[in-house]
């Protein structure tokens, strides 16, 4: 018996769905083993997870709160990863987007004017903030061939320190400086009412609010899909991702493309940061135990990998993984380790990326048979004619 791994000649369509699905199932199986090993019942745990994520009262509302930033982070990652440009810096780009978005909200909102104006200003400012932060690893990669994984990842820490500095260690524009509470503990200035992003409330499950950011995320997904499917920009980016050499021969301006795609990725992440401020925190959250602790940017990479970089799949996966995070909060407690949800997510990522191998290769098991004498004589190469 022989096990061989051979490259596939064709990539059948059903694989595109089977592999992510299979990875998730595989991940849950592995996690079940971990659960059993730590003394929990996997079946009831998973049922509770599903319950807490989607079925309980207000669970969808809470899931959307996590799913919205995850969708932005996933889209940001997918936009870049699709071209094999590994932007790990969505987390930091989100912080910068939050900083610039909050500044726009505070300034434009404080000056009065029609309601959509501060929100529009926050959207633009947030995107520009994320874009600017992504340009640093982008330009370094395009012109100096510096590894964008390292630069973008390390810039995340710089962005985090900047965020903390603005609220905790300076009397900056973003910081609330009036009032007794403000002197007791550093907090960000509250956005004026006109700058708070509205949501759409459905009377389902006791009141489910879809944040404005969620609509922006779906819009961004549509834009990304059109960009990659129907425009020349997207086509060139795809070619560049598949084969840089072919792209160069085809006349694709590689350096420009790299910078442009990083800028695109960063602007989506920045919009996510503006959404954090406008939809959820209504002030710049510089607390190291706040936005910086949750790690949306990193989970977004899992979302993108699982969604196989297709924008609409990414949004769907963001919703599902958002449910998982939400449910994890419900499940954790004295009898259930808090880190287990993170473990499950990690296993899902590993499985999803490992599943990539299965889309390009297949495992073949062949039985080695003993050749009979007759067969041997038949298969012996014929003597050359004399």
């Amino acid at each position, binding site marked *: 018996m022989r096990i061989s791994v051979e490259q596939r000649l064709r990539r059948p369509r059903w694989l595109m769905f*089977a592999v992510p*699905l*299979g990875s998730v*199932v595989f991940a*849950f199986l592995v996690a079940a083993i971990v659960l059993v090993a730590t003394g929990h*019942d996997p*079946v*009831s*745990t*998973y*049922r*509770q997870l*599903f319950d*807490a994520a989607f079925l*309980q*009262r*207000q*669970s969808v*509302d*809470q899931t959307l*709160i*996590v799913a919205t930033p995850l969708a932005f982070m996933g889209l940001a990652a997918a936009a870049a990863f699709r071209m094999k440009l590994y932007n790990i810096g969505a987390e930091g780009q989100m912080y910068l987007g939050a900083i610039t978005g909050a500044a726009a909200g505070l300034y434009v909102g404080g000056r009065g004017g029609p309601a959509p104006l501060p929100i529009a200003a926050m959207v633009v400012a947030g995107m520009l903030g994320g874009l600017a932060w992504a340009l640093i690893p982008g330009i370094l990669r395009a012109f100096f061939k510096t590894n964008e994984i390292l630069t973008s990842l390390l810039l995340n820490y710089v962005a985090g*320190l900047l965020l*903390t500095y603005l609220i*905790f*260690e300076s009397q900056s524009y973003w910081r609330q400086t009036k009032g*007794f*509470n403000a*002197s*007791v*503990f*550093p*907090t960000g200035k509250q956005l004026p009412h006109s700058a708070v992003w509205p949501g759409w409330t459905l009377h389902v499950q006791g009141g489910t609010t879809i944040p404005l950011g969620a609509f922006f995320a779906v819009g961004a997904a549509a834009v990304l899909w059109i960009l990659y499917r129907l425009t020349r920009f997207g086509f060139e980016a795809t070619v560049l991702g598949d084969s840089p050499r072919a792209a160069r021969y085809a006349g694709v301006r590689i350096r420009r493309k790299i910078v442009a795609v990083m800028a695109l990725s960063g602007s989506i992440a920045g919009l996510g940061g503006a959404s954090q401020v406008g939809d*959820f*925190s209504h002030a710049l*959250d510089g*607390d*190291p*135990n*706040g*936005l910086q*602790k*949750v790690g949306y940017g990193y989970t977004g990479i899992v979302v993108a990998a699982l969604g196989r970089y297709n924008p609409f799949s990414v949004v769907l996966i963001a919703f599902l993984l958002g449910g998982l995070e*939400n449910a994890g*909060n*419900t499940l*954790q*407690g*004295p009898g259930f380790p*808090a880190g287990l949800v993170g473990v499950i997510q990690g296993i899902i990522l590993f499985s999803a990326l490992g599943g990539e191998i299965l889309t390009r290769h297949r495992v073949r098991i062949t039985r080695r048979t003993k050749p009979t004498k007759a067969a041997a004589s038949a298969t012996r190469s014929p003597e050359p004619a004399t």
Partner: protein
Amino acid sequence: MKRRKLALAVSLLALLALVFASAGAGRTVAHQAAFKVAWIYVGPHNDGGWSQAHDQGRLYVQKMLGSKVQTTYKENIAVGSQFNQTVASLAAQGYQMIFATSYGFVTPEIAAKYPNIKFEQATGTLVTKNVSEYFGRAEDTIFLSGMAAGYASKTGKIGDVLAFPIPEVVRHANAFALGAQYAHPGATVRVVWTHSWFNPAAEKKAAQSLVAAGVDVLGQNVDSPATGQYAESIGVPWVGYDSNAQKFAPKSWLTASVYNWGIYYLQRVKAAMAGTWKPGFYYGTINDGYTKLAPYGPGVSQANQEKIAAVEKKIENGTFYEFTGPLYDQSGKLRVANGVKMDVLKGGTNSLYGMNWFVKGVIGSPKG
């Protein structure tokens, strides 16, 4: 080959169906009579510092009230959306009281959203009809632990590892310095900021830089025992914080200011169960058992222990208060006049909650 793939797909689907269709056998029946109260921690429940001390309080409540109460905790919860989600899920599970153990957890919005849940917020200032605040005079016991540091120091140069330049940390550092100077006149306290409540790597680096600057005793106002572990490795005495962490540095350990949250927790849970709970601002003292000194290590002599105990008695009966004037700041300016006692909330930057200046003898900037 196709049949095999089909079989695989069917079995995977069957497995998924099994997972989701499995009966409600796993659902536990909650004790109808038990009062459900939850604790929410910003860090791990076993961090050897802040959150662990709270968890000890929770376990104390569980022990004292037994089956009348059902307690749980949520750890590693971030301030903001994650806290709100946690509250939402706890509310869905019928929890009636929540102890939020970090500043910023409880916002007016979340309190208004769940008017039937009693929120208790540590270290904050928000008081509404269902939000109460609690903290306490850790500065008193930190003063005493500073005395232990002062006695242990030969050169009079002491170090303190601090987190963030906020009034809470500044007043704790000041109390530590005042205690050290009380025991060892002329002592100085050099401070280093780690910009994090819990970061063992940064704390160790901070401790290393302090020792390199010439201190011979280390103290801290952060949540991990990393400073102590480093102190033990080089044989420098160490004053901890939050919990009794002697096991991390058996020889270097002097003492620490520890919180005994359990006494307050038990009192409040009982009040909530009896219907007599009222929101307010609780500021605990040594007298009501809220804070005390951890057991001494080998480096504190019997004579010094007695001296510290004598001062503790004076704090308890009100004849001594470390934040009584005259108090000078680092530039030598008189900030608190002779005989004036600093109030907790009143007095702007001369209140305990608003203090943003270091006392004379502290080396380092109170701005970070």
